[in-house]
């Protein structure tokens, strides 16, 4: 075997166990809800209201990225800011569509993005996470259908 070949085997034999050793595992979730946040006693059930969607979808899932100064595409979904950044605000990727068009989920780009429709630009949301559940998407659709109120 050539010197280069022996060096490759040495590199693999060294690096692979090293990576396995360094690689940490996922947390055991003690004391946390399904989103990895501390268990809250006053959590709302999923329902087509902004407060419920905020607590069950926007805050635990979307604000993992859409938060603070670097909120992607200027869309912050933090509690207290989400409605102002969504309702009747033109989408950056498709300015002809509002992020949320009250009463019309089909014309709301938020719905397009979480459903991963063929017409979207960029990735399906939530990025790097599995898609929202059917119940979560249904709650968003109904909330929009009912006027996207601050309820």
């Amino acid at each position, binding site marked *: 075997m050539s010197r*280069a*070949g022996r*060096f*490759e085997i040495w*590199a*693999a034999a060294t*690096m*692979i166990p090293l*990576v396995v050793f*360094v*690689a*940490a*595992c*996922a*947390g*055991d*979730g*003690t*004391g*946390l*809800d*399904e*989103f*990895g*946040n*501390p268990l809250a006693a006053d959590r709302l059930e999923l329902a087509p209201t902004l407060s419920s969607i905020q607590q069950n979808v926007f805050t635990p*899932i979307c604000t*993992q*990225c859409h*938060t*603070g*100064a*670097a*909120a*992607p*595409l*200027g*869309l*912050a979904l933090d509690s207290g800011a989400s409605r102002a950044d969504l309702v009747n605000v033109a989408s*950056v*990727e*498709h300015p*002809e569509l509002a992020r949320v068009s009250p009463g019309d989920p089909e014309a709301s780009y938020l719905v397009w993005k979480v459903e*991963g429709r*063929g*017409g*979207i*630009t*960029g*990735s399906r949301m939530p*990025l*790097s*996470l*599995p*898609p929202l*559940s059917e119940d979560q998407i249904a709650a968003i659709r109904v909330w929009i259908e009912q006027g996207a109120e601050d309820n």
Partner: protein
Amino acid sequence: MRRLVSSIGAAAVASCLLLLGPQELSGRDEPYLSVRTGLKCSQCHVNKTGGGGRNDFGSIYAQTRLSMVQFTFLKRSLNDFLSIGADFRVLASGTARDATDAVPRTSVEIIEQSLQLEARVIRNFLTLYIDQLLGPSGASTREAFALFGNGSLPLEGYVKAGKFFLPYGLRLVDDGEFTRARTGFNYDTPDIGVELGIEPGPLSFFVSFSNGTQGASEDNSGKQIAGSAALIFRRFRFGASASRNDAPDARRDVVGGFGGFNVGRFTFLGELDYIFDSFEEREGVNQFAGFLEGDFLVIRGLNIKTTYGFLDPNRDIGENARVRWRFGVEVFPTQFVQASVLYTLLEDIPQATTDIDRWSIELHVYF
């Protein structure tokens, strides 16, 4: 005559490429390819910080050194003034394991149709570049900038102005990787601003000043500054990145380090990032994201890939870490064609409903 000279020039550059390394090269416009070859991102891409359209060198490399089989060589330059490029990706994917035992979901979708134009307005001094997404739905501009200097300024310097990907970390193609999604530096979030860069010898140093709105219209006085510095050698590289994004009621600081090395057919690279979000009206959140990648070049045009991602989404909360593995193969059967089969394994906390594994098959046609 001009065509003959161009062909001779292309052949000469290709010959130089053949002399660059002793082993076969394979890959795509990803950082591991840069580590494997010991080349800077700017060697193959119009955008000096990597990603997007390939330059003449990158096009020749992609056609002569990537694939198992090569057909007729095509020039990307239409003439002395204008060059074109394109990317087309189709993705088939599905759930392989779902913590909620939901019905398996599968999909086939076009995820990218893009066209790149490079106009060399003043040779070696002023270039106009556009990377336009044509679909899968309406058109949108991913990058559009004027590039001054193009290496002709002192210290191999340049100035870029327009809309572009900000310089930070390893520009992975996989936007879903924690280091890309959580830092906010990915293909979905180009920003508008100005970038300065120098690349003397082994050094690559970039710094950008931008709106900090990740492509959205500017609505405040806050701005983002992002920078990256790396030392790049034939067999290894290391570097660091940092960014600060100020807004009226919030601020995000991101710092990280990255590096990689190549040993024969093995290539390893990695990145670590700390993300600090602070708010005026509530407590801040600190995150930590890590990434490791190992590649093995089986034969020319066939690469085995394994990646490992780690995320602590809130340093103040214990036992909430998340891990993401990806492994599979990438094949370049002919020039312009790349296919990959990858399995993504997500390890989340036991009660998470987002604990889902996915398989994916991607076809990428590029020019």
